[in-house]
């Protein structure tokens, strides 16, 4: 009886470990609370556990000074920081500030670009997560025509 219980427990632990493994490896569930957050600091806290970022001149954020069309704003982020794990783009005055989040496995270069929508003129923040913390750089982008519909 005792032996049976031991075996059962061990089996349970093994199964739980197997189930947990792919999740940990991929870490790829869509972080809905972060994307649903209506304030930039909440979004960062949901995504990274803290909204405290260190301003860094090692990050270069490519964004236009004036975006004529808020529906298509080209953004690029490049950094010389090492061991980058994640890069996120946060538009502070968008209804949902977290626009996009890149998960960089080791070997992938911290050099990304995409196109996002902006509802109105707002600071755009690039947040870079490395193994030594969160770093950020911010830039004001003026929007002539908003791109969030309505």
């Amino acid at each position: 009886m005792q032996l049976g219980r031991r075996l059962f427990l061990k089996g349970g632990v093994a199964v739980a470990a197997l189930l947990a493994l792919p999740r940990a490896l991929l870490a790829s569930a869509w972080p809905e609370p972060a994307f649903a957050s209506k304030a930039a600091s909440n979004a960062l806290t949901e995504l990274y556990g803290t909204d405290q970022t260190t301003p860094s001149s090692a990050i270069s954020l490519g964004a236009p000074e004036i975006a004529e069309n808020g529906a298509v704003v080209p953004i690029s982020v490049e950094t010389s920081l090492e061991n980058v794990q994640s890069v996120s783009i946060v538009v502070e005055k968008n209804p949902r500030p977290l626009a996009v989040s890149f998960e960089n496995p080791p070997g992938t270069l911290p050099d990304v670009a995409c196109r996002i929508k902006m509802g109105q003129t707002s600071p755009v923040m690039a947040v870079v997560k490395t193994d030594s913390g969160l770093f950020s750089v911010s830039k004001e982008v003026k929007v002539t025509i908003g791109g969030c519909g309505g």
Partner: protein
Amino acid sequence: MASKIKVRVKLKGDVAEVKTLMMHPMETGARKDPDSGATIPAHHITELTFRNNDTQVMTVHCSTAVSRDPYFSFSYGGAKAGDTLSVSWVDNTGGTDSVETVLS
């Protein structure tokens, strides 16, 4: 259905520069139909995954704030000619699309 993802990869040594463009409406859920006035429900890509052979090289999580017909670019190391890069996305309604390309 043919894939609506376009991928261009440039190999520079062992670094692959990936540029990709995909067709997707990326509805925010805030827009209204101009005729009926009904709100158009949100319809956007949530997750985009890139694999080199079987190694995950990039995951992108998207909100509705990514532009219509999204464009992404990034680079990764450890690539060589003959490797297969696969790109796939899923959206919030369960739709998916994927494409594979061989590096050269």
